[in-house]
C-alpha cells in the first residue's frame, strides 16, 4: 500500500490514477496515522510553496513525513512536493520553512530575458545517476513534462539524479537513500512517467 498525501493539492487525482495505472495499491492519507503503516509515501504538489507548507502543517503532515522518511521506506515528492524537501523557497517573499530533508533552497529561473518563465512543456532528462532505481529503463534524452517557475538548488550535488537544461542546467530530480524527488510531473509524462512510477512501485515490493 502506498500512501498518497492529500492536503488539498490540485494534482491529487492525476497522481492517484497514474499510480494505479503503474500497478500500485493506493491509500489517500490526510494525517500521519493514515500513512504510518504504508510501504511508501507520495507527496504531490502544485501551486505556491507557502500554501503547500501551511496546508501540510495544518494536517500535521510535516512531522509525519519527517518521521516516515526516517524509517527508510521509499518516499517520492513531485513538483512542489519535491521542492518541499528543501529548507526554504524564494517564491514571492516566501516565509514558510520546508521539510529540510535536503540542504538548499528553491529558486526561480533567472536566465536571459528571452527565457520564458514558467517553463511549460516537455524537456529532456540528462541522467546523472544511472544507478538511480527510478530511471531504470528510461534512457537519457527522454522527454518529461514540466510546468514550473521555481526549482530546488541542492547544496549536495551528489543527490542530483537527473539534470535538465532550461537557460542553464538544473536538478530535475534528486535521490538520496529512500528519498526521491522530481520537478517534472511523472503523472503527466505519458509512457516515460508511468515507467518511473512503476519503478517506484517496484521498490515497495522489495
Amino acid at each position, binding site marked *: 500500500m502506498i500512501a498518497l498525501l492529500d492536503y488539498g493539492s*490540485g*494534482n*491529487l*487525482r*492525476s497522481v492517484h*490514477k*497514474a499510480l494505479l*495505472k503503474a500497478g500500485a495499491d493506493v491509500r489517500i492519507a490526510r494525517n500521519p496515522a493514515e500513512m504510518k503503516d504504508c510501504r511508501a509515501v507520495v507527496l504531490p504538489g*502544485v*501551486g*505556491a510553496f507557502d*500554501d503547500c507548507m501551511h496546508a501540510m502543517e495544518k494536517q500535521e503532515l510535516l512531522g509525519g513525513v519527517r518521521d516516515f522518511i526516517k524509517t527508510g521506506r521509499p518516499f517520492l515528492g513531485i513538483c512542489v512536493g519535491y521542492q518541499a524537501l528543501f529548507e526554504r523557497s524564494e517564491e*514571492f517573499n516566501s516565509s514558510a520553512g520546508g521539510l529540510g530533508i535536503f540542504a538548499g533552497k528553491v529558486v526561480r529561473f533567472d536566465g536571459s*530575458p528571452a*527565457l*520564458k*518563465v*514558467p*517553463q*511549460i*512543456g*516537455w*524537456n*529532456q*532528462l*540528462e*541522467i546523472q545517476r544511472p544507478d538511480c532505481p527510478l530511471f531504470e529503463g528510461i*534512457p*537519457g*534524452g527522454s*522527454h518529461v*513534462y*514540466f*510546468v*514550473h*517557475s521555481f526549482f530546488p538548488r541542492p547544496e549536495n550535488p551528489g543527490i542530483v539524479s537527473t539534470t*535538465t*537544461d*532550461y537557460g542553464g542546467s538544473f536538478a530535475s530530480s534528486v535521490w538520496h537513500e529512500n528519498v526521491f524527488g522530481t520537478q517534472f*510531473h511523472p*503523472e*503527466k*509524462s*505519458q509512457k516515460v*512517467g*508511468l515507467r518511473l512510477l512503476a519503478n517506484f512501485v517496484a521498490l515497495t515490493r522489495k
Partner: protein
Amino acid sequence: MERGSIPPVIAKRVIPCLDVHGGQVTRGVQFGKAEAGELRNVGDPVALALRYNEQGADEMVFFDITATAHGRSTMVDVIERAADQCFMPLTVGGGIKSVEDMYTMLRAGADKISINSSALANPDLIRAGAEKYGSQCIVVSIDAKRVGPDRWEVFSHGGRKSTGRDAAAWAVEAVALGAGEIVLNSIDADGTKAGFDLVITRRISESVGVPVVASGGAGSLAHMAEVLLEGRADAVLAASIFHFGQHTVGDVKQFLASKNIPVRL
C-alpha cells in the same frame, strides 16, 4: 537516442483543442458561429482525447462552449474521464469565473486553467488564481482581431464584442497580474485554414516573458512551422486539422522535426 548526443532543449508543443458542447466535441466553421448553433459534431471528447494521446499530443485543451451550469458539470465529468486515461497535461477553459471554479477543474484532473472573458471582466481573477495555484496554472486566452493596419484589439464574448483594448498591451498586463501562459487566437484567421496571424503572434511573443500558444488558422503543416519560426510561438493549437483526419499529431511533429524544430517524438 544516445545520451548527450544533442543538447537537451524544450520541445515546441502540438496541442489539439476540443470544443465541448453538451458533452460532445463540436467544431464551428468560423469564429463565433459555434455559439450561434452552426456546429459540426465531431464525437466523444474522451474517445478523441485518447486518440490524440496515442498520436503523441503534448497537451490537450478542453473548451466548454456551453457555459451553463449543466454544461459545467458535464465538463467536470469529461475532464475526470480524460484524466483517468490520458496521462498528459490537460487545460480547461470556458465559463471559469472564480478560484473555486478553478479548483473544481484542477481536482478533476486539469493542470492549467484558461480564462478569457472572465479575466477581461475581472482582471483580479488572474492575480487571485496565480496566488492560489501558481502562475504556471493560469492561462489567459486572448481573442484578437485586426482593426487597423497596425492595430489588433481584444474581443470578448466569443469574438462578438470589442473591448477597445490593444491585444499586446492586454497580454503584457495579464502576465504582470500573474498569467503564466498566453493563448493567442486570431479571430480573422480562425477557421479559415489560411494560416496563423504571424505578425500579432510574434509581437505578443516578444512582449511577454511567458510561453505563447498560437491558435486559429492552421490549415497546413507549413502553417504550423511558420508560426513557430516566424511567429516565435512556443506551441501550436489546432482543432479542425486534427478532428477531420487531415493530419495526425504525429504528422505535424514529423514535419516540424524535418524543419529542425525541436519536438518530442
